[in-house]
């Protein structure tokens, strides 16, 4: 089967700073992969280019056989890309249910309907509840999103991306700011969601237990370049990666 996503020679500079250079890799259908690298390695910038938030200076991005370089975020999302954010990005004054439901409505192309009450859109509502159930947030459905604890807000963010039924889901540091217990739970949850929703998933993460615990493929970014790509074992034993990023203590 053709890869879901192909990056081919992506380049991006902010002024004189090269944040992405000669970036090429492809993501296979159904893959659960991680992107790691020190701060400033260009991880989030890469996600921004894949999702059309930033335009690469050079190179091509192909999503399900179609070139998406230069398309807007809306167009790329409409083609099946979902994204959750490092700094939680939710609608704080709406209910937890509506945060996910608006994503489901968007997927069903019903966000322009001006008269019928949101609660009467059964398909979107059922789907939103199902997602909240999988995330363990169903009990909080009627609360306002800003009232949730930080960890739950991060899950809600993921839930909104799931509402789009994405073919490819990008998560930017899903466990950042969480306690070790929450991290463990989130790690299990990501794996569960990946299986339950048959997702192709790529996540950026600093927590090595999460990365090496669940990823099938790990890609290491360093100074805007792809330093290494391989199974967790291969990455773990890669001398270049160790000297650049992981450090001796992981040996």
């Amino acid at each position, binding site marked *: 089967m053709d890869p879901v996503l192909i990056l081919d020679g992506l380049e991006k500079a902010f002024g004189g700073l090269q944040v992405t250079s000669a970036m090429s890799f492809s993501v296979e259908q159904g893959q659960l992969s991680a992107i790691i690298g020190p701060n400033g390695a260009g991880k989030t910038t890469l996600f921004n280019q894949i999702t059309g938030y930033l335009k690469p200076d050079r190179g091509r991005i192909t999503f399900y056989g179609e070139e998406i370089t230069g398309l807007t975020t809306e167009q790329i999302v409409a083609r099946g890309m979902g994204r959750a954010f490092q700094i939680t990005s939710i609608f*704080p004054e*709406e209910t937890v249910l*509506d945060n996910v439901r*608006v994503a489901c409505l968007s997927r069903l192309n019903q*966000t322009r309907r001006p008269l*019928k*009450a949101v609660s009467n859109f059964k398909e979107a509502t059922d789907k939103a509840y199902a997602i909240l159930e999988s995330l363990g947030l169903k009990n909080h459905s*009627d609360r306002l999103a800003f009232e949730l604890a930080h960890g739950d807000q991060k899950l809600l963010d993921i839930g*909104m*991306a799931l509402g789009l039924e994405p073919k490819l889901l990008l998560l930017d540091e899903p466990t950042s700011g969480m306690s070790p217990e929450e991290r463990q739970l989130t790690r299990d949850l990501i794996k569960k969601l990946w299986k339950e929703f048959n997702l192709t998933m790529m996540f950026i993460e600093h927590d090595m237990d999460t990365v090496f615990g669940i990823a099938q493929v790990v890609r290491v970014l360093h100074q805007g370049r792809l330093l290494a790509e391989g199974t967790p074992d291969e990455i773990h034993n890669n001398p270049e990666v160790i000297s650049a990023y992981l450090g001796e203590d992981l040996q």
Partner: protein
Amino acid sequence: MADTGRYKDLTFWVLLLLIFGLLPLVKTSSYQLMLANHILIWGMFALAFNMLFGVTGMLSFGQALYYGLGAYSVGMMVKYLGQSWFLPGIGLGLLLAALLSVLVGLLIIRVSGVFFTVLTLAFGQLAWQITFRWYHFTGGDDGIQGIIPPGILSDRTVYYYFTFAVVVMSIWFMRRLARSPLGLTLRCIRQNPERVHFLGRSVRLNQLGIYMISSILSALAGSLMAGVDYSIHTNMLYWTTSGEVILMSVLGGIGQSFGPFIGAAVIIIIEDVVGARTEYWSLIIGIIMMVMVILFPRGLVGEFRALRSRLRSLTVQKRG
């Protein structure tokens, strides 16, 4: 949550229908009836403005443009073609507002925040200047007098019920919209526009849509007003008219579904009561606004609700 929201709305609906529906039946002077008519129309205008500001987060300082457009559509039709063109004039105003709001909207929704606000003000003042200077066509500073609704609508009470029905339908439409997927999307745009992009929805298109809806309803308010006062004036296009709906909305509470309507009622009543005693009524409004913004930022309706829920939790504590 959803159910309490419906309940709160219900209280307002009952009060609105009872007070304004029965008002002509009790002994009211024609002046009082006109005042009630003003409250209805300004309330609707303020609610339409708040669809932009409170809901979507677009502070327009130029809705007088559409309010005046509606009024002048009716006024000029009656002036040049005769009284029977009153109702077609309303239709024309709605049509022109729809067209103009798309054209202006396409130009100004590209910018956001204070730049958007300044541009709305600029377009509004432009329209005011044109109307003011073009004496031969618009009547300039003299305005247009003698705009009397045709047929049975020329009866004060009938016209009152006519505007009452139109206002109720418009408010009903706005409340439906607030609960719909479109309303939810608009609130999401105010809270986090970036995330809306990542849900695959265009922020600009939605903003253009609500700018159009709000402008059409503003034009409707203006055209109805022409038949209440029997006259129109360039002041309806002036920036102070745009400012007035902002004051009404802030006073009543921009985050509250019916706040702007309550704000409109309060301001009109203050203008009337204080205005009868002193010409410095705008000073009183100014002081009230300062106190509200500094001490009660949630507006009258918002603060009232907060107070009620605090009292309720107090009584629960006592019982517990």
